[in-house]
């Protein structure tokens, strides 16, 4: 259940859930075999809970977006509808991470999913957030780049935010952190950048968990329906609380506290693993 809470929180906070999954078990002396079929099946369930929480949180928006997308496909033409525009921006932003994730995720994780590279990527994640905030403040101070709403994003900007989301394939780089930074640099304000990041994350997390569902039925999986349902529910409730908190948080605050957390956590982990205090 602790793992479900960790997943629900770290998937949406800009602190890298994958990085925490690699770093925390050895730091806390949890004896988890991360290649075990039961563990992998449980992770699928947790992701499903997170995706469902996001869908429920933004349910009204998703209904409007899907309706507008279907209407535009039937019509065969793009209109000036706000929800339709956001829908197609989300499609354009999802394509890069879909392609790169399916083609390269296994190879990237084989190469980098060990504590020292993850600790370094966590520190890099911090610098990305600090740099993003500094650039956005500089743009605001010059006054030449006012904030714009999500539907005013261009296709290139949407593709850029989607590519930024692909950075989260590197364990230690946060999906929401990189997409919020890319959104800020594309002139969104903090609440809209966060909302767009969460909307963009929903189809990716949902598709990734649905495609992994066969893992639940692999031979040797020792997780029953009660544990699966409980894990899904706990991850979902925690994720819902996280997204509710973060959407309020970003109305008046920025990414820097998360940057400091990632910098301190990454540096501490790097020292502990590099000096072999923790094996």
């Amino acid at each position, binding site marked *: 259940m602790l793992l479900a809470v960790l997943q629900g929180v770290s998937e949406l906070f800009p602190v890298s859930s994958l990085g925490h999954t690699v770093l925390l078990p050895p730091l806390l002396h949890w004896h988890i075999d991360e290649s075990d079929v039961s563990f992998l099946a449980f992770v699928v369930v947790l992701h499903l809970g997170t995706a469902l929480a996001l869908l429920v949180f933004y349910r009204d928006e998703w209904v409007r977006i899907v309706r507008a997308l279907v209407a535009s*496909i039937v*019509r*065969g*033409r*793009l*209109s000036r509808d706000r929800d339709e525009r956001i829908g197609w921006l989300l*499609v354009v932003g999802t*394509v890069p991470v*879909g*392609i790169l994730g*399916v*083609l*390269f995720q296994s*190879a990237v994780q084989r190469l980098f999913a060990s504590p020292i590279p993850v600790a370094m990527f966590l520190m890099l994640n911090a610098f990305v957030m600090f740099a993003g905030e500094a650039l956005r403040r500089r743009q605001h101070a010059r006054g030449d780049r006012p904030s714009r709403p999500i539907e005013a994003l261009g296709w290139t900007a949407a593709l850029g935010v989607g590519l930024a989301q692909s950075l989260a394939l590197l364990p230690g780089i946060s999906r929401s952190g990189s997409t919020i930074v890319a959104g800020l640099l594309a002139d969104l304000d903090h609440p809209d950048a966060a909302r767009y990041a969460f909307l963009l994350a929903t189809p990716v997390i949902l598709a990734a968990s649905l*495609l992994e569902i*066969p893992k639940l039925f692999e031979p040797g999986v020792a997780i029953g329906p009660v544990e699966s349902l409980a894990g899904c529910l706990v991850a979902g409730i925690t994720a819902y609380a996280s997204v509710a908190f973060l959407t309020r948080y970003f109305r008046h605050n920025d990414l820097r506290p998360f940057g400091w957390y990632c910098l301190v956590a990454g540096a501490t982990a790097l020292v502990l693993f590099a000096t072999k205090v923790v094996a």
Partner: protein
Amino acid sequence: MKGFALVLFVVFVLCAILSVLHPLAPNAVTDALGFSSDKPHVKHPVLYLVLAVLSLIWLRFATAQPAR
């Protein structure tokens, strides 16, 4: 644009077929693309089919009459 969307559609359908049949010898490239017989996965055909459908939608938008 119409021609490019059509080419993309054909390419993604071919990729989907290759990733279902996975007939090629395993190496880094064919593994990544899902074309090799080493650990075939359902993710690859689904991705290629989604991309093929998106190409078709693009083709539909490109061939539709402009709004009056």
